[in-house]
């Protein structure tokens, strides 16, 4: 069931990033919205379940959950060399496209990577380097990239719908 209420493509795109499928919902494609929302969030959650929360590897932070600093200036590397920091962890580009859920998971991942106060050699969730962890990372990054496709399609449909509604 779909109706054709005019919506700004930019608003549809932003809504689609905030919650996967929300862009479709705004232009009246309810079944499509629910389908992609459930699928994308399931893939993202399954990725975290398979690989653990540390599969969200935030650029600019090291394995101990501390900001990476430039040795000569003590400036955070993420502000000094943002592009190279992000390119060091390219999966994060895909993951962040899944929406604000990635920001919440990033915060959780950084906190869990910090060493325990009573045992500086151990963190609550160690970073895994097994094949299963790579597949989990793939899940969450693919979820984000699928959301990008959904955002583009929803914005395109909103634009097309507006053009058809516009007076000649």
């Amino acid at each position, binding site marked *: 069931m779909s109706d054709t209420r005019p919506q700004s493509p930019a608003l549809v795109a932003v809504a689609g990033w905030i919650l996967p499928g929300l862009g479709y919902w705004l232009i009246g494609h309810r079944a499509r919205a629910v389908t992609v929302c459930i699928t994308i969030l399931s893939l993202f959650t399954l990725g975290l379940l398979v690989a653990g929360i540390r599969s969200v590897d935030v650029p600019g932070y090291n394995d101990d959950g501390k900001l990476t600093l430039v040795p000569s200036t003590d400036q955070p590397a993420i502000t000094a060399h943002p592009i190279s920091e992000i390119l060091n962890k390219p999966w994060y580009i895909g993951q962040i496209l899944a929406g604000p859920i990635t920001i919440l998971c990033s915060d959780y991942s950084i906190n869990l990577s910090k060493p325990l106060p009573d045992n500086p050699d151990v963190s609550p969730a160690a970073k895994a380097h097994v094949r*299963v962890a790579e597949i989990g990372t793939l899940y969450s990054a693919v979820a984000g990239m699928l959301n990008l496709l959904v955002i583009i399609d929803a914005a395109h449909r909103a634009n097309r719908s507006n053009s058809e509604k516009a007076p000649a």
Partner: protein
Amino acid sequence: MTPMTLLAQAYVYHPFLDPLPVWNVWYLLLVPLCAGVSIVWKSIKCESMRKVPSQSAGLLFWILLTMILAAAGLAALVRLIEHFIG
């Protein structure tokens, strides 16, 4: 028992903190991933959502078949190279 088997038995899995202990069947994890890709792709491409279940099932079948054939082809190629070189 091998040391790896003992290690695997000693592993305590904490959901969302540790990797899932599916070391021997990791390739099965590709099936839900391909299913998710098929569903979202067909949800984008199909004008009617009624067609999505059958269309995405068909796409999933072709993705898995192609991956199996590619894996078999690569395995055969590796065996062939092993035969001639080593």
